[in-house]
């Protein structure tokens, strides 16, 4: 307990109003900054993607249209709030909060900067630093699946229902790969706390998990988290051409606004989580000047996060939407085995190099067996050994054909 008291005043046994005030300010500033960042992110995404498509984008409200999000929010609040007659009213009203609250809570574990001295207390520049840290991320993303699922189910409409089925299947299958890559990070760090994860990467660019763990976990994590966010190219959940608007088709007014808000809040949070887990969070060069010592880490963190936010926009502009079966193939047949194998290799090297090389051999063997199995599986419906081949060449019996056609012949 004494260690935590040294990094965060909330863990001291007796605390007075100063500590309360510090905590209050920290929470207000943290969430306030997140809200501000969300409005900027929505504007940034719309502006950047329109630049990439040679369009102008929002331009009416404020300089460069920066207040467009405010105008949209105001419009959404003032609109009529409709609840479909077939909807399960309680669940329908509950679902947006199940999406927004996890999005907010997840951000609280992100270290925004290093430490700061306020009134004799050493304060962490993050909203909360629970010892379970990164598990909170997994728990919250698990709860937001419920939000999406219940939103689609309670709408009492078929497209949202289909969308929510897709969403839950997709989010659950990618959560496995996501969890596995987080395990590699946690194995290397030896702690679940985000503060410790960032601390372990502080010694320069070669200590960043991106390089220390090999690039594979980073790539898997970025792909899995994009799927988890339902962002393009993994946004089959709201494929307009198939499902109208996805799980929030029946939502209007501020309830829809909450989904929209949560989506972009999650984008920012997950960019920040990627930075925390793999790019050293606020780590970076800091000048040896008294007041710049706490400003620079924040600047580094923001720069890295904005880079990833831009990456998400870039994904959306460059990549077409995945087909649903391709999505599932990628999740189950590629990302999960890959991340699982990498956990084994990293764990082996953490014990001693000999174990590491043994694990590499084991993983290579497993990879060969798996790819042969996938190949066989494919050949059963497409190749020479296809079980469908016999049916394909057989003439359909007349009585069966007559059952399925209207014409007499």
């Amino acid at each position, binding site marked *: 307990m004494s260690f935590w008291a040294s990094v965060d005043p909330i863990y001291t046994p007796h605390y007075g109003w100063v500590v309360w005030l510090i905590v209050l300010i920290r929470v207000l500033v943290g969430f306030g900054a997140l809200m501000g960042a969300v409005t900027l992110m929505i504007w940034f995404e719309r502006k*950047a993607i329109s*630049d*990439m*498509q*040679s*369009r*102008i984008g929002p*331009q009416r409200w404020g300089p460069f249209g920066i207040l467009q999000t405010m105008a949209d929010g105001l419009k959404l609040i003032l609109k009529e709030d409709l609840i479909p007659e077939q909807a399960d009213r309680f669940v329908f009203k509950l679902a947006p909060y199940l999406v927004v609250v996890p999005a907010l809570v997840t951000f609280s574990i992100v270290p925004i900067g290093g430490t700061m001295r306020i009134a004799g207390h050493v304060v962490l520049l993050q909203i909360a630093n629970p010892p379970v840290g990164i598990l909170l991320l997994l728990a919250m993303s698990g709860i937001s699946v419920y939000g999406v699922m219940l939103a689609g189910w309670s709408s009492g409409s078929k497209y949202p229902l289909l969308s929510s089925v897709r969403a839950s299947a997709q989010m659950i299958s990618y959560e496995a790969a996501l969890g596995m890559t987080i395990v590699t990070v946690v194995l290397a760090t030896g702690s679940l706390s985000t503060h410790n994860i960032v601390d372990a990467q502080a010694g320069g660019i070669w200590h960043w998990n991106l390089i220390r763990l090999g690039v594979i976990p980073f790539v898997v994590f970025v792909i899995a988290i994009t799927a988890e966010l339902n962002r393009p190219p993994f946004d089959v959940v709201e494929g307009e051409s198939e499902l109208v608007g996805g799980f929030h088709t029946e939502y209007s007014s501020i309830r829809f606004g909450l989904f929209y808000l949560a989506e972009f809040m999650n984008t920012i949070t997950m960019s920040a989580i990627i930075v925390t887990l793999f790019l050293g969070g606020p780590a970076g060069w800091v000048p040896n000047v008294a007041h710049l010592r706490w400003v620079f880490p924040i600047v580094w963190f923001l720069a890295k996060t904005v880079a990833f936010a831009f990456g998400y926009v*870039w994904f959306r*502009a*460059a*990549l077409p939407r995945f087909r649903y079966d391709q999505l599932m193939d990628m999740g189950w047949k590629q990302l999960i085995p890959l991340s699982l194998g990498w956990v084994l290799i990293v764990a082996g090297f953490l014990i001693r190099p000999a174990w590491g090389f043994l694990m590499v051999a084991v993983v290579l063997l497993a990879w060969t067996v798996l790819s042969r199995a996938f190949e066989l599986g494919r050949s059963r419906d497409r190749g020479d050994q296809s079980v469908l081949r016999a049916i394909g060449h057989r003439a359909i019996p007349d009585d069966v054909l007559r059952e399925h056609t209207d014409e007499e012949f």
Partner: protein
Amino acid sequence: MANLFTFFGGFKLTLQHLTRPTVTTSYPQAKRPKQPRQHGRHVLNRYEDGMEKCIGCELCAGACPVDCIYVRGLDNPPDHPVSPGERYGYIYEINYLRCIHCDLCVEACPTQAITESKMFEFSFTNRADAIYTRAELLVDDQGMPRRLPWEDWRDGEAEMTGGWMRAASPNGEAAFEGVTQWTGDLGFGVRVAEAGQSVHRDDAATGSKQLRNVFPKHLLPEDVPLDQRGLTGLAKTARAKMPRRHRRREP
């Protein structure tokens, strides 16, 4: 491996687009230059001496596929004739709730009395406003179209009222290139013929200059017009963008 590179091709392309100029304009404030033969709201022209060109023959009404034109001719009063012919268009109405701007009336007209301006941005709040009468369609004493309160006129849209006529006259035959077969308009005189296929099109006159400068940057290399390719093309566009006084004299 080739697959991987094509995968990243999309990323490269979208990033390149960041540096390219936008194709869209912020519409109500800025308008794109209109095409030389744009079909807009009609005008009824006058001769250079102020006489009306319309002779009330009703051929436009006959040609109209949607029956939006209503014309009645009347004999010219002998002491102060309205048109040089026997009769003049006494009633001339176009219903813009029906008009499809096909320009068949312009083709049918034997005296080039009815032509179309480039202005198509007009909206009304009642049906009576949608029916333009002769007084509204007829050009004023300077030969310019009358600007009604609900119409959005910009520079150049009033001047180029004879686009289709000027383009159609050469008839595709080299012998008729540059030959004018139309009468003069009040305020403009006899309008110049549009350049044919053997001459470089005069971009400044047709109003499509800006479009030609913007679009090559969005085209595939092989689709860029020949005179705008490579270094010479770059030099040419740069020179075209320069203010007039710095420009070298054309050879």
